[in-house]
């Protein structure tokens, strides 16, 4: 499973590349980064991707008591072409997995994925042949939310974490559309895996 995750993380076009730090540092682009990230993180359109009981909590967090509109996320889009964020709410069966991946591929970049609940994050109680043991085997996940199901405030906390992540993202890294040609060392000499190394650099 680990190998699978690494492959996706390395080849996916929306995965930020590790920038060349000596070439970077353009003052103008840095300021532009902040404006673009401000706009992006305050107008995230989620995709309606409710698969199970977590979807009830997802709907509840969009309703008046918790009100995702306060974060600019109230517009749940039925079309992946108009969505920025996929909240995978619920268990993903093996039959659903290619559908989920296709819908993810149809979303325009930049796009983010929140894996909501125990089932979507790692299979949860369904440790069996029918359920994908973690949606990060199919798509790169930005924020994981534990809970069965997570309460709306736990989901909103995750979305705030996502906003914090978007705040730190860089423009040049997001616009990388072609797969990277150079392959980072999957296993470095000290045994740390590439996925951890790329996480640390974000």
């Amino acid at each position, binding site marked *: 499973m680990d190998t699978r995750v690494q492959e996706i993380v390395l080849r996916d076009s929306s995965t930020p590349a590790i920038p060349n730090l000596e070439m970077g540092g353009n003052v103008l682009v840095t300021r532009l980064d902040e404006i673009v990230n401000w706009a992006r993180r305050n107008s995230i359109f989620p995709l309606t991707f409710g698969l199970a009981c977590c979807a009830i909590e997802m709907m509840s967090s969009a309703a008046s*008591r918790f009100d995702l509109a306060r974060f600019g996320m109230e517009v749940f889009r039925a079309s992946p072409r108009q969505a920025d964020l996929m909240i995978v709410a619920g268990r993903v069966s093996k039959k659903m997995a290619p559908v989920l991946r296709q819908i993810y591929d149809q979303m325009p970049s930049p796009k983010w994925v929140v894996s909501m609940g*125990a089932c979507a994050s*790692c299979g949860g109680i369904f*440790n069996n042949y029918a359920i994908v043991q973690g949606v990060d085997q199919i798509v790169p996940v930005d924020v*994981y*939310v534990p*809970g069965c199901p997570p309460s709306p405030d736990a989901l909103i906390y995750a979305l705030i974490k996502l906003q914090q992540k978007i705040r730190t993202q860089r423009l040049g890294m997001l616009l990388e559309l072609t797969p990277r040609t150079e392959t980072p060392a999957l296993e470095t000499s000290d045994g740390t895996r590439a996925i951890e190394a790329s996480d640390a650099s974000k």
Partner: protein
Amino acid sequence: MNIVRDVLKPIGKGLKITMRHFLEPKDTVSYPEQRKEQFARTRWKHVLLRYENGLERCIGCSLCAGACPVRCIYVEAADNTDTERYSPGERYAKRYEINLLRCIYCGYCQDACPTGAIVLREDYELADYTRESFIATKEMLLEPLPVRDEVAEGVK
């Protein structure tokens, strides 16, 4: 067509409902600044408790791991010695790990625990960026040592 009867009156009627709801008290909890009061028996992140003298309640019996429906608890027990004493019993949990991502917060571990060591509290802000960060070790779960009030005890 009567303008007043067919157009203006229905609009006024509709706007009356709008105004009534507009003036009602709002039920939105503006979450990051203001928190919803959690229910008394809310089950979220686990806490390993201590006795009042600072010894751990957990005796490493693995009953919680056995009761767990998703098998997200790992317990490795070791013997207490007179020089290194962690719990009042014979054994203590040398390693105690919970996969918070796999956990469904059902509270069966809390029910199974014979010493009341593991309880589920109301800390729900658990979301994170990597899967690795969800393995909660014993150090992360254990309640901090009770702070001794040295002034009250007269210790100088």
